[in-house]
């Protein structure tokens, strides 16, 4: 009896995984598939949030910022898109359990591509990390950042993901950062 139950359970799990996978990858709404989307690369920038572009990954410094909080600088490069006004949606989730850390949306005017073939966000965006959501530790945790570019009618036209691990700064802000970024 127990053996039958285990077989049934395993079969159900496989079915759910297969079904789930199909649902995730499906294009039931007829929208663009991943191949149709423009390429978006997520990057960071040196601590001052100024110029420069470094692919986001590994350790990401938590920068003291908004009203006593901490953020990670985000930038992005888009290849294969025409200039124009778009909506950009950012989100960040803790990789271990997909708990939401950040969600934000804003409009962005995309300019023409450079000779290198991409358009780059001129100034880095502060991705708000801390004070972190209640019960969600952010510091020293792998965070999955996602940026989606949507057309005026809300259709996705570009998206990219990158993972990084926010780290508190050393020095005067270290203790404070650890306190408010630990959920």
């Amino acid at each position, binding site marked *: 009896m127990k053996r039958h139950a285990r077989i049934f359970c395993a079969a159900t799990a496989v079915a759910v995984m297969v079904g789930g996978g199909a649902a995730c990858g499906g294009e039931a709404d007829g929208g663009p598939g991943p191949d149709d989307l423009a390429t978006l690369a997520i990057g960071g920038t040196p601590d*001052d*949030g100024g110029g420069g572009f470094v692919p986001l990954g590994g350790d990401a410094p938590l920068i*003291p*910022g*908004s*009203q*006593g*909080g901490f953020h990670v600088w985000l930038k992005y490069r888009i290849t294969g898109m025409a200039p124009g006004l778009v909506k950009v949606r950012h989100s960040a989730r803790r990789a271990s359990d997909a*708990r*939401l850390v*950040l*969600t*934000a*949306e*804003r*409009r962005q005017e995309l300019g023409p591509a450079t000779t290198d073939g991409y358009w780059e966000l001129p100034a880095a*965006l*502060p991705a*708000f990390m801390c*004070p*972190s*959501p*209640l*019960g969600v*530790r952010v510091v020293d945790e792998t965070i999955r950042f996602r940026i989606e570019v949507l057309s005026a009618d809300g259709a996705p036209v570009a998206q990219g993901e990158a993972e990084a691990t926010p780290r508190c700064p050393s020095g*005067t*802000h270290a203790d*404070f950062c650890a*306190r*408010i970024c*630990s*959920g």
Partner: protein
Amino acid sequence: MMNLARCALFLGFLAASWVGIGPRQAEACGCFTPPDPSVPIVQAGERILFAIEEGVVTAHIQIQYAGSAGEFGWLLPLPSVPTLELGTDELFAQLIQETQPKYRLTTAFEGNCRFGRGGFGSSPPSADGGTSGGSNSSGKGPLVIQDSIGPYDYAVLRGDSKDEMLKWLADNRYFVPVGTDQTVGNYLGPGKYFLALKLRSGQSAGDLQPVVVKYPSDYAMIPIELTSVGAQPNMGVQVWMLGGSRAIPRNYYHTVINDLAIDWYAAGRNYNDVVIKAVAEAPEKHSFLTEYAGTSRIMQDRLDFPRRFGDPAAHAAAPSAIGFVQSLQSASFPFSSQVTTILGRYIPMPPGLERKKITPAQFYLSIDYFLSDDYRSQFPEDFEGWAGINYQPQKMVDELWERVVKPTLAAGALFRKFPYLTRLYTTISPEDMNLDPVFSFNKDLPDVAHEHQATLTYYCGVLGSDDPARTPARLVTEQGWSVDYPNGTGNTQPPPPRDVAGSQRIEVLGEEGPPRVIQEILPDRGGCACRVASVPSARSAAAGVGLALLGAALAMARARRRGRS
């Protein structure tokens, strides 16, 4: 054995979760800066309306201050150089009124009740959930902008260096109270800014009006640690959030108060005490309540209804001061302190009226009476020392438009732009102001009504009763608690239970998904009476039929007694 292991695993998980959401400390809004650093001004409370759109936060901040104009100062840390505009007190008056928690007790009668239909709770309810009780520089120094707006001089300062900033404030008579030196530290650093306000020369405390600050940020946050400098115990913090869905406290707990603790008979008079108790039950005493969450339409047309404020040219053309004030009245101007303070500079109130405790609003609303020849001849002493009228209608119109009309219309427009309004509330003491509350949204959460209802049913039985004080009754609250009064509710209004928890539920609200409940108490299943040890007349459950029978028996007994006498 297996169950025990699972149980242990579950408990371990719970413990781990609790540790994970355990104690933190942090810092945090504007603080008042009196000139005498040893005497912090008591700050009555915080009232802020946030609207967030596309990475820009718009904050309407009501400055509540009790003190002399010369002693007023205000400091707000910001993530970037803000834009500053004037706000309006009327916004907050309307918000408070339209979203105020209300507790209504409906009285029902079963059987032959021969007493009134206007019992407890028939008076208009209003739980007072409110607070007890508001030049560019490219040089090297901290100054970024110094300018004036409405009644204020203001400066935006770089927060790179505490010493430089505090010195600039002191040199320019923006005073800093004791304690700021310690609390300001976490708001300092490269790329950080402070907005400092003081009243302009010649302005009075009555000129204080809300400010509107706009700055880029994805989240609204109250830097509450700075507030602790002049705060009082259990200070109320009221936050309204405008957006596309219900707002949440991102890093504070969320509490649903236990409505059994509410004084339903007095329309929720003890509401604030219940809130204080409920918040104290949350970890770190860090929790907000949602007092209203729903459509922002309830605020539409409250501030900017059609043809409000009329035509400025028509007001300016009024032939006399009395005619001017009456012209404002007919255009639905509020006679708030902002309006009366402006009017007072040109049409001052006679000093004797102040001595008679006539308020400025009362004076201007009845100006034709107080300035009539009859009144003057009858009470000449009221006019002793009166400067008289300096009638300058165009100047008055200009000031009114800048300080009242434009801010009010702009505030009203917010409720057409943003579809959803949330009202959050907490009370917090200075020692607990160690974590800046951050607010966000969650579209998965349901609306929250601000009007609440309980029912008190009298069971008069078949033979009837004519005395509500002795008639068995049952109170059933909105959350399903019931309290039985088998011997009646007595001659005085029964108090609410004293020893019940203030919170019905403590939970964590995320930016998606349903609440995660941390602690919850529920009424007994079946809706039967709860056990309320502190209610003298409340006993264990008795079903409606039983109460009706008891009522009938009591009625019979009284009828017999009356027969004997």
